[in-house]
């Protein structure tokens, strides 16, 4: 077990904790908008982007970002016509993305691309990450009132002067930015869960809006902090003759799921 962290590890730790905070907030609105599943599959489209980038040797985040941007526009377009066909289309396109991404990603990198791992960060990426987190949190705080109206009733929101379709697009872009921030730590398969599970915990424990937003964010930061600690202290453990890897992504989502199960035991405060 290592105890001292290098500066780049400290950068990473701070950024992943702040990403968790942003994910808790974004997740709360995703859950209220009943977009949890659609939101989750959006993250899968990051994989072909990661794969192509790794294959051709450019920055994986640039690849994932480009893929997510296209995925966002696609899902925004699909959601405008909320029919069964839309849901089928979302299911098909984004699972297909996962399959294609798996083929494209070099096998050495596949596990990490799917399930994440701890990434070291240089100062430039750290600052870029901080800017992205600020943008996400700032956006949610600035438009929360419009989001509330539009998720209560898109029609009432529109009658109050909110451009609902544009707001949905911005929200999806912010969602994708959150996915992008988390994708290298949690992997394309698990990053969606960081947005969904803490919000589910918050929803389970609270019944007012402010308490919900705060609790989701705390649950998210706690999951990441505990997950980081566990995967650092016990990167491998042995059960009988089998050695298991406890990568960062599964550790975080494992903790989050455990917290969710605990939250089921508690009555609403």
């Amino acid at each position, binding site marked *: 077990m290592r105890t001292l962290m290098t500066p780049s590890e400290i950068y990473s730790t701070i950024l992943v904790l702040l990403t968790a905070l942003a994910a808790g907030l974004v997740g709360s609105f995703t859950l209220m908008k009943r977009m949890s599943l659609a939101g989750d599959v959006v993250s899968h489209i990051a994989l072909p982007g990661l794969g192509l980038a790794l294959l051709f040797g450019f920055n994986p985040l640039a690849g994932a970002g480009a893929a997510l941007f296209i995925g966002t526009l696609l899902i925004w377009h699909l959601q405008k016509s909320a029919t069964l066909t839309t849901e089928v289309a979302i299911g098909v396109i984004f699972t297909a993305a996962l399959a294609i991404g798996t083929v494209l990603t070099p096998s050495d990198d596949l596990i990490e691309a799917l399930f994440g791992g701890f990434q070291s960060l240089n100062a430039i990426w750290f600052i870029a990450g901080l800017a992205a987190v600020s943008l996400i949190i700032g956006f949610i705080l600035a438009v929360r*009132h*419009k989001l*509330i*109206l539009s998720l209560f009733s898109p029609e009432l929101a529109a009658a109050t*002067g909110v451009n609902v379709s544009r707001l949905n697009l911005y929200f999806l872009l912010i969602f994708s930015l959150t996915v992008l921030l988390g994708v290298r730590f949690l992997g394309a398969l698990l990053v969606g869960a960081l947005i969904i599970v803490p919000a589910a915990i918050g929803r389970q424990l609270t019944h007012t*809006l402010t308490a919900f937003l705060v609790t989701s964010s705390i649950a998210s930061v706690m999951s990441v902090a505990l997950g980081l600690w566990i995967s650092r202290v016990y990167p491998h453990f042995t059960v009988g003759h089998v050695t298991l890897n406890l990568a960062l992504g599964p550790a975080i989502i494992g903790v989050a799921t455990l917290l969710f199960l605990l939250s089921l035991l508690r009555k609403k405060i």
Partner: protein
Amino acid sequence: MNLLQVKHLSVQLEDRSVVEDLSFELAAGERISVLGPNGAGKTVLLKALLNLLPYRGEIVWASGVRIGYVPQKIDADTHLPLTFTDLFHAKCRTLRITLNQAGDIANTVGLTPQILKTPVGHLSGGQFQRGLIGFSLIGNPNVLLMDEPTASVDEPGEEHIYELINRLQTQHNLASIMVSHDLSFVFRYATKVLCLNRQQVCFGSPTEALSANVLTKLYGESVGFYDHHHHE
């Protein structure tokens, strides 16, 4: 002065004509009731007036008109951790006005502190409807558009809601366009009636416009016997 002038309004939804060639106007303080069978285009008309749907023809609102809208029915998700306090505040913030109004309006429409603390999905039909009416009043509207505001309220509650609306309109001199199925309400409160069955069947004061002939045209033979001369 007319607050609203509608000329030759037509709305098509997916190649189907829902509203054809409507022309009417709304003057200050006037109360128009919109009558018509299911599928007659009443809700679509309100949405077109709110500019929520594409339409052909002319809809001209006078300058200075502020519209409050009470929708027909909102299937509020019982899981939403939202109260009417949150919604009132959200509307105030979106319109960039102070929050002061919210408390007064809650009082006016009879939302108790207890109701204001309850998530919207857990309110009764009547409480929810009062909340929606309160929501429409934020921003000091001078015109209310209401789409069957008592659709999800039981009968004694219905009467209270109508009384509330009537009181608010008198106090604030609000003009209104209300979709309603309730003919007794139409005769008691409406100054004009607009009959709609995709096309415009009548427009005028209730006693003049609602002849037995018009009602038959609207609803078919079975409803032709409403005797409107015995209201009051």
